[in-house]
């Protein structure tokens, strides 16, 4: 396939692998966090780890929008669908995430709630137009990549006078999370994960640019390389990170130049800024409460804010006991270090969000990588390519 195969070319991968092995110093370990679930997915799906020398390790980050949504917000969504009888429009991944007492949207749907899986905000608007006598709520989740479409949907609803459409806004921000991960005081007793550098978000950066990471790179002395989602992008970015570490640099570099600029997409930023504003703080699964890390709907558009339109109740939401999603999302633990992994928690019966989304580290380990070290299935790693 044109414009895709080029970034998955085996001969180039082998060449890059040799270069990485050559430049990685044998007396040093390299721990690089891929922030995005998209990178985690690519690393496992293409077997990128197999092309890395033993002293280069990927630490899986929290950049999976489904994974970091706290249970309470999911419980709120279930309540919107069940108690308030709205048509709840959600992206597919969110359907299977278990909330308190394993209650998920897919269970609520089976019990009669009107939950609809959509592919874009435009689908939610269409459903609102077609059901003028029903309240339609769009369950907005995601990082900066998905915020402009949410902003546009609200502006469209306003322009069309769609009175039955509102947004349950759960958009979160990447740079705040990266800084939070590096703040050593916050994660007693485990402390923060060891991270020598970041593979920076690709799609997020198309919107916000590479500039917003410069503060964290400078403050915490960590190199960041904005990396595309194709496997060759990941490998090239690892090489760039190794070079920065070796040379003692901690800059924001951009491997994904075919799409990302330093300034980002100004038009998209302006649209988001018109409709949404930064929250003082927001709860993340795994990271706890993070200051200035999420967006809410501005007062000028309060009419479209589901949190204001519906009086959702205070809840005592609970994570599944023993689920290590929080430590896994911070990169402190690996999925295989969770007691539930592969025993009671599998994609068939997920106990935590990281096992649901294909971008979650647990799902990636289970789906693509369970022959690797530390697996519980007893299977062996495949022989090297012949």
């Amino acid at each position, binding site marked *: 396939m044109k414009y895709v195969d080029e970034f998955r070319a085996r001969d180039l991968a082998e060449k890059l692998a040799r270069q990485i092995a050559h430049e990685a110093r044998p007396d040093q370990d390299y721990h690089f966090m891929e922030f995005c679930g*998209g990178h985690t997915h690519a690393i496992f*799906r293409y*077997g990128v780890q197999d092309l890395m020398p033993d002293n280069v390790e990927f630490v899986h980050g929290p950049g999976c*929008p489904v994974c970091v949504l706290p249970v309470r917000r999911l419980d709120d969504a279930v309540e919107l669908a069940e108690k308030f009888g709205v048509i709840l429009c959600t992206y597919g991944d969110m359907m299977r995430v278990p909330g308190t007492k394993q209650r998920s949207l*897919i269970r609520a749907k089976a019990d009669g709630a009107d939950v609809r899986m*959509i*592919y874009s905000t435009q689908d939610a608007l269409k459903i609102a137009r077609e059901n003028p006598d029903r309240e339609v709520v769009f369950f907005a989740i995601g*990082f900066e990549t998905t915020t402009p479409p949410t902003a546009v949907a609200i502006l469209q609803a306003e322009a069309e006078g769609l009175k039955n459409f509102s947004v349950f806004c759960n958009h979160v921000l990447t740079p705040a999370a990266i800084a939070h991960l590096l703040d050593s005081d916050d994660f007693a007793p485990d402390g923060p994960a060891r991270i020598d550098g970041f593979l920076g978000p690709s799609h997020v950066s198309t919107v916000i640019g590479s500039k917003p990471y410069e503060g964290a790179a400078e403050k915490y002395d960590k190199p960041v390389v904005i990396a595309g989602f194709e496997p060759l992008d990941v490998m090239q970015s690892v090489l760039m990170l190794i070079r920065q570490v070796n040379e003692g640099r901690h800059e924001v570099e951009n491997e994904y130049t075919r799409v990302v600029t330093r300034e980002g997409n100004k038009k998209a930023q302006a649209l988001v800024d018109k409709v949404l504003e930064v929250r003082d703080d927001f709860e993340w699964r795994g990271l706890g409460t993070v200051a200035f890390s999420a967006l809410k709907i501005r007062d000028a558009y309060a009419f479209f804010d589901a949190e204001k339109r519906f009086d959702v109740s205070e809840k005592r939401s609970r994570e599944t006991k023993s689920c290590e999603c929080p430590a896994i999302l911070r990169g402190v633990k690996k999925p295989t270090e969770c007691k539930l992994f592969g025993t009671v928690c599998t994609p068939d019966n997920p106990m935590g969000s990281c096992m649901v989304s294909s971008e979650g580290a647990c799902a990636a380990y289970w789906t693509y990588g369970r*022959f690797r070290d530390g697996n519980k299935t007893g*299977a062996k790693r495949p022989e090297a390519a012949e």
Partner: protein
Amino acid sequence: MNALERPARLTGSVDMTHGGGGRAMADLIRDLFQRHLSNAFLDQGNDAALLPAETGRLVVSTDGHVISPLFFPGGDIGSLSVHGTLNDVAMAGAKPLYLTAGFILEEGFPLADLERIVISMATAAREAGVPIVTGDTKVVEKGKGDGVFITTTGVGTVPDGVEISAKRVKPGQAVLISGSIGDHGVAILSKRENLEFETEIRSDSAALHTLVAAMVEAVPGIAMLRDPTRGGLSATLNEIAHAAQIGMKLDEAAIPLKPDVHAACELLGLDPLNVANEGKLICICEAGDAEKLLAVMRAHPKGADAAIIGHVVEDDACLIQMETGFGGARVVDWLAGEQLPRIC
């Protein structure tokens, strides 16, 4: 002119009288089903079709079809209900002989659409050379069905010496596929109301029994045949691996995939390995027979893009492992539930 010869009433839509056992039902059967599906067995007009006894081993398979949308590029529920069951019978290495069809119609379903579906079934059955010998029609109230559901049953005979069974799958054997993966699932997804592509991807819905006949004639010792329908290639291979208590090693670069299907899957965040097929088969045979079988498959129009995609290995964990086109390794897992698109 007797009462049964009154004109057809194929305008309008299905109503409760069409399932009531009265004259309206008799009219529908005669003017629609019998008219298009006519053959010597169906035309006996009895409750049960009287068929000549067969010698040897019989196979029988049944399959319900509830697809939405009913009409899609490359087929419709009618042709699909014929192909699907013919293929299930053929996957026993059998020659399909007869089909039956049961219809559940929803009140209000347009009769013109029903006729289109029945004509499509008739065409598919005629092309396959397998008659639909008996059938049934029921009508349910509006809201209790989704237009039309069709259940078909197929009967066939297995040639002597052919033993298709997961129990015969052993390490060292070769894994073959008859063509490109994911065409049907992507064609259906692209037609569902909320997804539209500019280019039309067509379902691969097709009857595979003549391909199977050529294969078992050339290599009667084929160990396993299976059509990778729901859940795609990954589900089918995992089912076989668990049934046979073996693992498999695949070569991603060898798995045929059309560029437009690949592109649609990229866009939707789907893995083509998990996407449904309706005109493809997986074959597992002794390694020494693989090249011969591949040549036979490629010589048949339904197997022109056939490929050897991997081999069977010993593995207590029954994993399907794959060397990726990129040069790494991964597991090919089956899906937990329905394949859902990723978010970003």
